[in-house]
């Protein structure tokens, strides 16, 4: 049988992949995609816990799924703003590589 730990394991691996993407890649678009992966990994563990905590009325705990709904909404807004900043940056510098945007680097 599939246990709660299996879902948490998949979620943890997915989060680590997203984290590695943010650390390793230098293309800003790929970094944004890796952020999405991390947010979705968190969503998966929230939904797994929601299904795990069946209440006295025999239904899953829907509070977690409402959180997932909010996370998806905020993530969509975040992607839109992030990509708009990317387009503005590309107009100014003609690059999406984080190595070329190090003016403020100490």
């Amino acid at each position, binding site marked *: 049988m599939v246990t709660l730990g299996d879902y948490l394991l998949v979620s943890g691996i997915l989060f680590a992949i997203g984290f*590695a993407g943010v650390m*390793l*890649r230098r293309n800003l678009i790929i970094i944004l995609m890796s952020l999405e992966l991390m947010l979705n990994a968190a969503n998966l563990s929230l939904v797994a816990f929601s299904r795990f905590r069946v209440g006295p009325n025999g239904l899953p705990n829907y*509070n977690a799924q409402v959180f997932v709904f909010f996370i998806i909404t905020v993530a969509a807004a975040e992607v839109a703003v992030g990509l708009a900043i990317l*387009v503005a940056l590309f107009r100014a510098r003609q690059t999406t590589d984080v190595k070329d945007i190090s003016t403020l680097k100490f």
Partner: protein
Amino acid sequence: MSPFLFWIFALLTVIFGAAVVVNRNPVASALSLVVSFLGLSALFMSLDAYFVGIIQVLVYAGAVMVLFLFIIMLLNLRTEEERRINWLASAGGVAVALALLIQIFLVISRFEPARKTFPPLPGSSIDDVRNIGALLFSSYNLPFQIVGVLVLVATIGVVLLSKREPRS
């Protein structure tokens, strides 16, 4: 859901998630991300969260990925040129990610409820859309409205950011 289907979709999600990071071509990364999100949506549905699974397909695989692909095509990004890879920095990044992964493994292996299976639901079908909607408009009414304002602000911000500045 049978363990066989669970592991198929879990493998699909993880392998294509890794392909997002490994691919050098941004378009291939975006398409891998779509497959990864579809696998994740199947995992949501295996947890009886049909509403979340469907908005995962609609919002992520539909809207967000179209936005990503549109920006990639608009900026005409090709496979990034082979730059000299800083091996020390890459090894550091991989080491930190691996440390995080090991930490997660340890936490899950010591977490007692993680070894239990999911309790069965009494009904054959549950109307989770109705339950989530009721919760959204009663207990979470204020956060729901705040999210609405947030989306409005994001829309205005995107229009402002992508407007071309007038030449002076």
